[in-house]
Every structure is written in C-alpha cells, then in structure tokens.
C-alpha cells in the first residue's frame, strides 16, 4: 500500500511540474551584423590552377546573412571567353530568405556551372584568367529603437521619465545601417503643440554599392540604370504607428519617403512628425522604426592560372 502511495506522490510531483528540465528558451536577435547577401567560391571550385583543354567546375554559395528576404536576386558570371568556356547560363536569378527566429542562420544556396579551359596560345606555358561573380539584389534595412519624445522644449520640468538624445542603434542585419538618429523638438506656431523632427543618418557598412531598388537585373547586366541611380536608397520612418514625413524626396515622386544620395558612403534624411506632438503628452518613450530600401551589388573574383599540359 505504501508503495502505491509513494508512486502516486511521484506522479503527482512530476505532473505538477516540480521537476523541470534544465533548458531555457532564448530569443535570437536577427537584426545584427552588417551582412546581407554574401557569396563565396567553394573550395577548389574553381581551382587556383588548372590545365589547358580540361574541364573545371565553378561552384559558389550565395547566403543571406542579413535579416531581410531577397526575392529579386541576380547573379551574372563574367569570364574571359578567350580562355574559358562556360556551359550554361551566365545569368541566374535567386531568392533567399533572411535570418529569422525560425531560421537564425538565414537561407543559403549552392550554384554550380561547368567551365572548360581552352587551349593556350602557342609558345605560351601559362596564362591567368579571372572569373567574376556579380551579385545584385534589393535589400531592406529595418531599424527599431526606443525614442524619447520630449514636449518640454524649454526644459522646465525637472524630473522626466526619459531624456531626449541622439541614438546610435548599432548594426541591423543588413549592409546598409541606420547609424544615428538625432531628435529635435522645437516650439510650434500652435502653442499647444511642439514640432518633432529626426535627423536619420544612413551608412553603407558593407563593401558593395547601392543602386536604385528593384533594378537588380539591370545592375547585373550592361544596361544603364538611369541618371542618379547609384548610391541611392529610400527611407520610411515611423514614430509609433505614425509615418514621418521625410525629405529630401525622390525627384518627381510624392509620398512621405525620403530619398538618400550617399556621398562617401553616408547621407542623412530629415523626418518630421506631421502635425507635431501635443504638449499635453508630456515626455514619453515611443518606438521608432526606420526602413531603408535599396539595391545592393558587389563582385567577387577569383583568378585561375591555366597551365599547358606537357
């Protein structure tokens, strides 16, 4: 009888959750790092040295190491036709999901193609040729941070729940980063409200170049993208659920989006809260979200030495 009582007590304890395994659930922050789409040649593919009139493989891995999904990725393969022959397409499209709580590594894909080294010129023992991968895609940077909104523009209140200051949000899981947000709160013509404006600085933190979003195919082919299509990005900003009005804007385009033209890898937009903030709101914290959209391209090259088979 005692045995049954003991067994029943054990079952009860376990069932009530007194025994808990030593595991913890942690939330992964995918919005870190300055990488987006990355590319690398696989080991020995292509090899550093090959021989004339022999096949060689070209394998490369594209990975999305950032936090944004890519749906219009393009990779174009550049080879020197006088030295190499490529079997298959020179242009490939790809889609790769970014890092997420479900897939914290991000999606990756391996592509392969077959090459053949051609004959070397007579009296030539070796030649070096270059294989280039041009990668283009549209990417989005999402920065989310807490902003202190202070309607006490003359600083008359001694004790406030937060202090308004410039914020540097750190990396956001994309090659283009929101590097700094500087708030400015000033008196409005309407004495019951204040004006809230934010200077948002954007920086190219990667080694590639920005171009106008949704022109990935053009960027990875010889086509022209159009005047002022390089080093540009569009910016949307929200304070809470209210969209800010950003400027400068893209020429001949309306809306609230700001338009950046990076010089030396950096530029800023000024975004203002339409209508301002009622003074009665006091000093409070609010979530600010900045969304930067741009095309991004980079080129990876590898040199292959072709030797004569003797």
């Amino acid at each position, binding site marked *: 009888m005692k045995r049954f009582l003991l067994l029943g007590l054990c079952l009860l304890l376990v069932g009530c959750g007194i025994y808990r395994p030593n595991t913890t659930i942690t939330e992964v922050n995918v919005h870190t790092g300055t990488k987006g789409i990355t590319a690398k*040649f696989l080991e020995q593919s292509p090899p*550093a*040295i090959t021989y004339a009139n022999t096949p060689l493989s070209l394998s490369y891995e594209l990975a999305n190491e950032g936090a944004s999904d890519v749906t219009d990725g393009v990779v*174009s*393969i*550049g080879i*020197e*036709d*006088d030295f190499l022959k490529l079997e298959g397409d*020179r*242009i490939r499209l790809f889609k790769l999901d970014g890092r997420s709580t479900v897939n914290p590594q991000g999606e990756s894909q391996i592509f392969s193609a077959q090459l053949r080294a*051609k*004959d*070397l*010129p*007579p*009296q*030539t*023992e*070796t*030649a*070096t040729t*270059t294989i*280039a991968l*041009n990668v283009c895609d549209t990417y989005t940077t999402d920065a989310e941070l807490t902003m202190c909104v202070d309607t006490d523009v003359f600083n008359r209140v001694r004790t406030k729940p937060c202090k308004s200051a410039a914020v540097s949000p750190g990396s956001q899981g994309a090659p283009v980063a929101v590097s700094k947000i500087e708030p400015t709160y000033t008196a409005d013509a309407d004495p019951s409200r204040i004006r809230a404006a934010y200077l948002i600085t954007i920086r190219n933190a990667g*080694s590639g*170049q920005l171009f106008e979003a949704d022109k990935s195919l053009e*960027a*990875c*082919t*010889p*086509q*022209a*993208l*159009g*005047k*002022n*299509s*390089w*080093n540009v990005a569009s910016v949307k900003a929200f304070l809470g659920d209210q969209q800010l009005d950003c400027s400068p804007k893209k020429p001949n385009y309306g809306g609230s989006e700001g338009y950046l033209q990076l*010089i*030396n890898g950096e530029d800023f937009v000024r975004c203002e809260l339409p209508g301002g903030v009622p003074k009665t709101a006091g000093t409070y914290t609010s979530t600010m979200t900045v969304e930067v959209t741009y095309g991004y*391209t*980079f*080129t*990876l*090259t*590898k*040199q292959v*030495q072709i030797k*004569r088979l003797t």
Partner: protein
Amino acid sequence: MAETHSYWENQRGETIVGSADVLFWITVIIHVLDAVFGRLSKGGVTIPGGTGFFLLAYAAIAIYASWGVFKDEMTEHRLARLGKYLIISAIAYFLPVLVNGVLARGVGQTTLYVIGSTLIFAPTWIVYLGLFERDHLGKGSRGFLVLYELIWIAALFLLILPYAKTATVTVAGESGAPAQISVQEAFLNVYEKTLLNYQKLTGTVVNTTQSQIGYATGDAFTARVDRNAKEKLGVKMDSLQMTQPIFGVNDPVGVFTKLTAETIDLPLAIGVGCNATDSKTNPVSPRSVSPAGVVDVAQQEVIDIDCDFNSGAFTPGTGTVHIMADFSTATLAYLKTYFMTRDRLRELRTAKIDPFQQYGITDRNPATIYTNGPVSVAMGFSAPPVGIDTTVDEFTGTLGMTIKNVWQGKIKALLAVYVLVPKGFTVTEITGTTGTFKQTHCIDLQEKDWCDDALANVYELTSPGGFTQAIDAQQSITLRMRLRATAADYERILGTTPISTKFFKAVAAYVYSLDQARSFSVVGGANSSGSTASEKVLLLGSPTAETTGTTANITFVTNVASATEVQYCAGSNTVSCKRLISSAPASSTTHSHLLQGLQPSTLYSYDLYGFSSACPNNKCPLSVAGQSGSFNFVTGSP
C-alpha cells in the same frame, strides 16, 4: 678585438646611438643618393662630383669604419680591417658598374632588371652591417634592420613554398574589390607595385620594349613579354670558332659554331648558310656547309654548324667568314581590354564609383602580352574601360600595333600579319603602311587553335611594298587600324555582364636571320709572289725585345722570307698560360711584332713561328740554334 664608442647610452648602459649607428645611417644615405642620383638611377649620375663622389664616399666609409668605429689598438689589426672594409666599399662601388657595363651586354633585359632591382633593395654595406656588426648597432638601427630582414624572409618564403603557389587569398588588390589570387601572386603584385612606384619616383623604369622608331604615324606601343614564358625561348647562335688560329694559303679553312633552339610547340625550320670574303673583299664560296639545306630543330635541340672552304680559296691577309641561320617563326600577342555601356560608365563616375573597383578588376591598364622571341608585338586601344554609347548607331576606335625587332639579328621579311579583333568589330582602314587588308578566317592561321571565329574577326594585313621590308635590330614599324562596330554588334561586345573583357590579338609571321661573323688571318708563301716557301724557316741570330711599360717590339731575322707569328703571355713560360697571338702575314726575312697592352714591370715569355710547307702543319717553331724553350722579356716601369 674591435671596440666601438657609444655616443648615447640609456640608464642600463644600452647603446642608444653609437658610432656604428652613424656609420650605418651614412651608408643608408649614400645608398639612397646612389639609387636616386647615382649609378642605379636611369637618369645617370647627376650628383655634383659624378661617380667620383661615390668613389670618395665609399672610400671614406671604409676609413671611418676602420679608424672611427671598429677601433683597435694594434695598427696591423687596424690595417687589416681597413683592407676588409675597402673590399666591401669596392663591392658597393663596382657592382652597379658591373651591372651597367658588363652584364648589360651579356644577359637579357629581364635578368638585368632583376639584378638591378636586387642591388637597390640589397645594398652591400647595409647587408654587411646587418649580418656581421649587428651587436654594435643601437636600437633604432637594429629595428630598421629587423624590419628590412622580415621583408626579405617573407619574400623568400612566399617565393619558395609550394603552398604559396596553390593557396589562395582574398585581397582587395589594386582596386580594393575582393579577389582570390594565389599567395605568391599577391606577393609578386605587391613587389611589382612597390618597385614600380620606386622607379617612377627615381626615373629608373626600364621599358625593354619601348619603341624608339615609329613610322610616319608616330606613336609606338609598348608591351611586356609573357612573364610566365621561358626566358630563353627562341634561337641562339654561339660565337664562331675557327679550326686553327692562322691559316696558310694552302690550308683548308674551317669554321664552326653551335645553334640552340628552344621552342614549346612546333619545331623551327632553320636554314643554315655560310659565305666569306678574302683580304681583297672578293667573295669566297664554301666547299660545304653542314647541315645542308633546311633543318627542323625542336625543343631545346642543339645543332652543330660547320662550314669548310677549299685550300687556296683565300689570299694572304685577313678574311672574313659569316654563318647565317634563317628561320621562319611567329610572335603572338594579345591585349586585354574592358568594355561597358557609356551610360553605365557615366552613372558610376557621377556617383564617384570606380568601375574597376566595383567589378573586381585589378589589372586596370593591361599591357600587350607577347610570346618570347626576337620580335615584340605591342598593341594599344582606348583607355579601359571603353564606354560604348548604345544610343548611337556606330562606334569607332583605333587599334595601334608596333612590331619591333628586339634581338640583334634582322627581320628579313614580314611574311604575314594577322589581327584578330573581338567579334562585333570590323577593320575599316589601315594606316602606317602602304599595304592593304582582307578579312579571313582562323583556318588560314597556322596558330588556328588559338583563334576562334565565334569570338573574333580575323584580318590579314598584306603590304608588299610596305612592311615586308627588312627591319634591323631595335627598329620597329607601327600600324594603325580603324575599327567600327554598329548598333547590331553592341550586344555581342558588351556581353551579359556589367563589364566585359575582350581581347585583341595579333600574329606576326616573319623570317628572322641571325648572323655571326669572324675575321681570320691567312699567311702567304715563301716569296713575295705568294707561293709557299718550300724551305724550312730558321731563326738567324737571337730576337730582340725593346720594351716600354705597356709595349714590347720583338724583332728577328729568318733565313727565308716567311710570314711569322709571335705567341706570348705573362709568366716565365708559355706552357701554362693563356697565349695571345701577334701575326704578320706578309712574307719577309726581317720581322717586327709590336705587342701592346702589356702590364708594366711584368715578365713575359714568347714563342716564334714561321710558315713553310717544309714544316709540320706548315708551321715552323723558331729557336736559336742548339737551344729550346721560350724567349723572355720584362716590361718597363709605368
């Protein structure tokens, strides 16, 4: 034991700056002056005092080192040190002279370039102080040396280790874009750039193929030989050797040499010829030439060439013989360039984006690469990347080409010149020659494997009255071709990538002639009519020698008229020395030989010979009756 005197020491007694450091930095300064304004500079010696400045400077360094730095109480030790340091200074002083004067005539330009560069980076005194006197140097000098040595060690490892050839490294390269190249290649690129920058600074860039003579169109184009090609590729003929130093008129005259051919692919067909002139410049035909006709010479083969002339073919005096080797071969060249749409190029430049960096191109301004051999072919096109305006119907450009004879032989004739332009371009005009051109196909090229009709349009340039003329050593011709592409061709040229790489290629086929010549002496017969003496030539009396510091006049009398010869050398006998020869081809009974270029106050020995058919090999050793052995004289004081 040598001691040094420290000028400044720290609290622990360690030398901060000592007299050895002063010496060290003086040698650095002198070397820099030598490299920038002195013998290692292409501009020549521009420093006041000329080469004398460096002679005095290196002598002063040696004296300062032995008396002012590495002191010793004993005078004999000090003198020994002075001798050693003078030798080091002599090496430092004479090495550039050796490179510029002696090696420049005997080695290839590439080797010379390497030696010259090594001298710049490995100065004698600095190397010596780093290896043997390091303990006497202060911290600053030692730090400098450590840095210097680390660079050398890294260089050696990167050049020698097999790992360096196969392992790849991702580099930003010249443009900053990521690129994977071998470790060794990365090192060589850095070395080349460093050297080039240095040479640009000092003006010591040696462009071995820079054309000196262009044709009417002026500009000449430069190229570099394939860095990976074998240095000795081509055909080389050794100096001519005679079967004997002096010939009698009745001797058969023989000459021989060696011909070395190095090829990778096809054997070379080499035609060997021989001719001569006698002392009156009358042509003399050979009795036989071996090998006769045309001979195929394949990879690294050596053939012996012999040329024989009949007895009596040459009159007494000085004859000249030539051996010629003619061969047909071709030089292949290619020039890489890049094309983009002009709008894309403008977009990037407006956005201050470097197109080379953006697309990972490290070779920003490629030079023409040509196969090693006697002729260089260089091409030039618009500066890359070439922007093609796709909004207009036509693109035009000019391709220039310079063909230069870079060896010492002669281009007897250009057989054919083929130009391969990227598919999409057509040649519309050619200037710089009276010739014409016609479109052809790869099948017409001997090097058809290198040619692909799908990638190139092939043109043959023909010019009977123009460039088929002979081109002498170091001479060149320059041609210019007008190219055209229409809108329908743009896609083919631009390809599917943002920047396309295309190649202009050229093949120059030619007959090249190597010619070696040599003079030789033919001595006459026993009388003035030139008949051979039938009586044995004997010495009458003893020879006399009147000497100065550098000359000796040997006079003697023979029993019959004869040509004579004096063989002489420094030393007490003529057996174990390298003999020099003085010949007197004219027949006479009184003889006088003036020997020049002698060393002062030196004992010389000599032998005398007369020429007669009565002696073995027509040569009669002359000696005083009843005696044997050489004669002697001593040169005077300087």
